C-alpha cells in the first residue's frame, strides 16, 4: 500500500477535532474497537485499520470532509457496504475512511420516468423491493445484492447473473450525485438518456472510488416480464456444456441468465441447499428465459434440443416459481457452500471468450494439481465471466501465498486467451499487480492522467487499481511486469 504519512498519524487528534467542526461527534469513530469492523471488506485476506472512520449524513458533509482532507493532504477511502471482493475499500493506517452507510434512504420512486433515486448506501435489493409491488425491478443482481450498496455497485460497475441480456450497472443507471476530491458537488446525468458532452456517467461507473465519492444514484427500473422460467441441464463433460452455450447463442437466443457450475461446486451446493442438482454430472447449466409465455416455452424447447445434441444427461424445466427459485438456490449459495469445503477461498473473476471455456477450465485443473489446492468453478456462461473459487487456509501463510499465485496464474491465462482480468469484481488491490498483463504503460499512463486530472494529489482511494509509483504517475512512468516490480522497496501509491 502507499507510503504511510506519519505526519497525518501524528495529527490524528487534531484531525478529529477539525472534522468535529462539521461532523457530529457520534459520526466520528476513532476508538480502536469502533474502527475494527472497517479494517477489511469482502477480500478478507487483507486487513488494516484506518486512522478514523467518518459517517457523514449529507452530501454537504461529504463535501466538507473531502475539501478538508484535500487541503491537508489526507487520504480518503470511501466505503459502501464493504462487500467488494477485490479490496477496493481496504483502508490505510493514515486514511480517513468515509463510510456511506448512513445514506440509506430511497428519495424518489418515479414510475413515469421509470427510475428510482436512491442514496448511495441503499442496498441493491432494496431498490427492487421498493418497486416490485408495481411489477418493476432493478436489473443488475450481484450475488451480494441483499447487502451490497447501490453506490458500491456504481463504483465497481457490478453485474450479476442477468448481465448478458440486461447489462451491468453502467447500462442501468441514469444519473449520479457525486463529490470530487476538492469538495465540488455535482450532478451527472439525471432522468434522461445519454449526455450532451463527455459521458462522465460512463467514466465514473466502475472507477472504483478513485475519481469521486457517490452520494446519490438514479437507477433505471424495468417492468417485470410476464413469464420467467429456468431449465437445469447436466452434462458429462465441461466441453459439452461449453459447446451448448455456444450453440444457444448461435441460434440467436439471448437468455436472461446462463450459469455453469463444475462437479466440485455441484456437489458442494447440493449438499448445502438441496436444489436437486444432478450429482453425476461433470458440469451443470442453469438457463433462465423471460418474456411472454409463448416465447419462453418455445425457446426452452429449443434449448432442451440443443442440450440433447450436446450430450446432456439431465433436463429439468421449472414448472413453478418455487421450482425456478430452487434451481437458483444452489447457485446463489455457491460462495457460502465453499466455506464448508475449506476455511477460506479466493473468488477469481476473469472474463474469457465463451469458446475458450473448456481450454481455460483444463488449465485451471492443471494449475490446481500444480499448486495442490482444490478449486471449484462457477461461470456466468452467457457473458464469459468465470469465478474459480480457490480453496485455502488463511492461517497457513504458505497456503495463502500459493492461493494468490494460483489466482494470478488463472487471470494471466484469461488474458492470454483474449479475456480480461475482471468482469465484475473490480481490480482493487487484488489484481492491481496484474494490470500490466493487460495494459501497457501508455494505456495505464492514460488512465492515470485522468486520475491526476480529477484528483491531482492522488488522495482518493490511493493504492488501488494501478500498479504505478505515485512519483511516476506525476513525472514519468515505470513498467511493472506481472507481480514483479522493479523497485519493491519503494512505497507505492
Amino acid at each position, binding site marked *: 500500500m502507499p507510503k504511510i504519512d506519519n505526519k497525518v498519524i501524528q495529527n490524528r487528534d487534531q484531525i478529529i477535532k477539525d472534522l468535529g467542526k462539521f461532523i457530529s461527534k457520534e459520526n466520528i469513530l476513532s476508538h480502536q474497537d469502533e474502527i475494527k469492523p472497517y479494517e477489511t471488506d469482502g477480500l478478507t485476506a487483507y486487513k488494516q485499520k484506518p486512522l478514523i472512520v467518518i459517517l457523514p449524513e449529507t452530501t454537504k458533509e461529504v463535501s466538507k470532509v473531502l475539501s478538508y482532507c484535500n487541503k491537508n493532504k489526507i487520504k480518503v477511502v470511501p466505503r459502501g457496504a464493504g462487500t467488494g471482493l477485490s479490496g477496493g475499500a481496504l483502508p490505510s493506517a493514515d486514511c480517513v475512511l468515509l463510510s456511506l452507510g448512513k445514506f440509506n434512504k430511497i428519495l424518489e420512486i418515479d414510475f*413515469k420516468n421509470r427510475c428510482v433515486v436512491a442514496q448511495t448506501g441503499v442496498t441493491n435489493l432494496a431498490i427492487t423491493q421498493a418497486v416490485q409491488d408495481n411489477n418493476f425491478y432493478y436489473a443488475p443482481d450481484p450475488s451480494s445484492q441483499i447487502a451490497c450498496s447501490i453506490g458500491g455497485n456504481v463504483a465497481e460497475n457490478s453485474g450479476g447473473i442477468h448481465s448478458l441480456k440486461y447489462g451491468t450497472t453502467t447500462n442501468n443507471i441514469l444519473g449520479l450525485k457525486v463529490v470530487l476530491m476538492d469538495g465540488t458537488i455535482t450532478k451527472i446525468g439525471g432522468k434522461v438518456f*445519454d449526455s450532451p*458532452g463527455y459521458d462522465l456517467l460512463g467514466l465514473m461507473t*466502475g472507477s472504483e472510488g478513485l475519481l469521486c465519492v457517490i452520494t446519490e444514484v438514479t437507477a433505471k427500473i424495468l417492468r417485470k416480464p410476464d413469464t420467467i422460467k429456468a431449465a437445469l441441464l447436466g452434462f458429462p463433460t465441461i466441453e459439452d456444456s461449453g459447446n451448448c452455450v455456444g450453440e444457444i447463442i448461435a441460434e440467436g437466443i439471448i437468455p436472461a441468465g446462463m450459469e455453469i457450475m463444475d462437479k466440485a461446486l455441484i456437489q458442494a451446493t447440493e449438499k448445502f441447499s438441496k436444489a436437486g442438482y444432478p450429482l453425476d454430472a461433470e458440469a451443470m447449466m442453469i438457463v433462465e428465459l423471460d*418474456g411472454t409465455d409463448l416465447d419462453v416455452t418455445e425457446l426452452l424447447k429449443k434449448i432442451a434440443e440443443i442440450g440433447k445434441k450436446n450430450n446432456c444427461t439431465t433436463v429439468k424445466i421449472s414448472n413453478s416459481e418455487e421450482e425456478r427459485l430452487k434451481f437458483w438456490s444452489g447457485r446463489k449459495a455457491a460462495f457460502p457452500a465453499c466455506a464448508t469445503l475449506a476455511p477460506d477461498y479466493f473468488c477469481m473473476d476473469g472474463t474469457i471468450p465463451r469458446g475458450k471455456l473448456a481450454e481455460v477450465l483444463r488449465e485451471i485443473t492443471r494449475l490446481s494439481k500444480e499448486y495442490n489446492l482444490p478449486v471449484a468453478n462457477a461461470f456466468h456462461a452467457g457473458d*464469459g465471466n468465470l469465478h474459480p473459487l480457490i480453496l485455502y487456509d488463511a492461517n497457513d501463510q504458505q497456503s495463502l501465498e500459493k492461493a494468490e499465485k494460483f489466482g494470478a496464474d488463472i487471470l494471466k491465462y484469461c488474458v492470454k486467451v483474449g479475456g480480461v482480468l475482471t*468482469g465484475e469484481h473490480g481490480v482493487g488491490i487484488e489484481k492491481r499487480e496484474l494490470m500490466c498483463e493487460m*495494459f501497457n504503460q501508455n494505456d495505464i499512463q*492514460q488512465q492515470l492522467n485522468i486520475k491526476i486530472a480529477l484528483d491531482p494529489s492522488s488522495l482518493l482511494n490511493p493504492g488501488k487499481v494501478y500498479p504505478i509509483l505515485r512519483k511516476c504517475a506525476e513525472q514519468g512512468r515505470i513498467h511493472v511486469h506481472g507481480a514483479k516490480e522493479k523497485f519493491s522497496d519503494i512505497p507505492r501509491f
Partner: protein
Amino acid sequence: MELKKNSQTFQDFNSTILKPSNEEQIQQIIRYCYKNNLPIEIVGTGSKKEIGKNLQCKKILDMSNISGIMDYKPDELYITVKPSTPINSIQEELKKNNQYLAFEPVNFEKIFGKDSKEGTIAGALSCNFSGSRRFKVGSARDHILGFKGYNGKGEKIKSGGTVQKNVTGYDLSKLIVGSFGTLVVLTEITLKVLPLESDTKTIVISGLPLEDSLETMGSALNSSNDPSGAVFYPENFRNSFIFNDLAYPGSITGIRLEGTFGSIDRRIKNFYNQWSLNEKKTTILDKTQSIIFWEDTRSLKVFSNTDKSLLRAVVPPSETTNLISRLRLFHANYFFDWGGALVWLELDYLSSEKIDQIRKRVVDVGGYLTVIKSKQNLKDSTEVFTVDPIEFRISQNIKKSFDPKRIFNPGRMYRGI
C-alpha cells in the same frame, strides 16, 4: 497528396488534407501535429461534419482509408472494425449471420444531403445519437466493448476488450463515445452485436392528441409487452407516411414490437385489450411496412432536405407535454421518439437568443439540448451542446489528459475543449 509507394512513412506533411493509409502514418501525423502545435480536424466520410461548432483547423486528418472489418466472431457476439468502416457494410456483414448493431444510429443523410450516405462507425460513435430502440437496448455507448487509438501526443492507447463483461480499469470506451473526436483518433473499435429479431410489427394509432399519445406510449413502455420503439408524429407529418395498410388520417402514434411471430401477435392482442384499440383508429403494419416506418424515423425523413434549423432535445418523458406547451411560441415542427424522451424540433427563424430561451426551457425540465443544424449559421455565437460549468471544468481536465495541446477537433464541442 501523394504517398511514396512501398513505404510506411508518411510523406506529405505540407498538404492541408493528411490522408494516412495505415496506423503508422496516423501516428506520424499526430506526432507531427503535436510537435508543431497544429490543430487537426478529424473526418471520415463527412456525413456529420456539420454537427458541432465550426472548425478552422490548419490540417484535416482524412481517415477514410482506414476502413474494413478486422475480426468478427458471431458466437462471441462481437465485431472489430476499423474506424471508417461504413455502417452499412457492417450491418450487411452481420446480417449474413442473422445479427446486427442494435442501437440504430441516426442517419443524417437526408438532413445534410451528403453523398457520404450513412457514414462511418467512428462517426456514429463520436456523436452517440442512437435510434428508437434506445429505451430497450441502450445507445451506441452501451454497445462498445473496446477500442484502440491514438491520444493527442500520438501515443497508442487502448481500453476494454472483446468480452461482454469487463471492469478492468476505467471505462474509457464510454468516454470516447459522444466525444466528437476531441479525445482520441480511433484505429480499432470492438462492438457488441446481437441476434436479429426474427419478426417485427408496428401498431399505429391514428389521430391521438399529443397528451393521449404520450400517455399511450408511457403505458406501453411501462407494460410487460416489451416494445422496442414508441414514436409520435403530429398530423402535419401524416403525408410523409404512405403505406398500403395505413388509411386513417391524423397524427401517428407508432409502437414497435419485435420477437417471434407468435409472441408479437400475443402482445398486440394484449394492447388491444388494454387500450380498447378496437374503438380507436388502429392499423397494424406488417414486417415490410414496419421496417420502412422505423427506417424513416431513424433517418429523420419528416425533415428531409430541410432548409430550416434542427434541434434535438432529450427530456424526462414525464416532462414532454410541459416542454411542448412551453415551446409553443416558437412555432416549431416537432416529433417525439423514445416514448417521448427525445424531441426533434425544426424551426424556421432561429437566433442565439432563441436557442438560449429554448435551451433554458429544456434544462428547466431536467433535459438537454443539442443544435444539429442551424440555418443562420449561429454555431459560432451560441453553444451547440448543453453543459453546466462544473461539468465543463471536469471535461476540460479530461480533454487535457488525452490531448494536452488541444489538437483534436479543438472547439468542436465547446470553446476551450
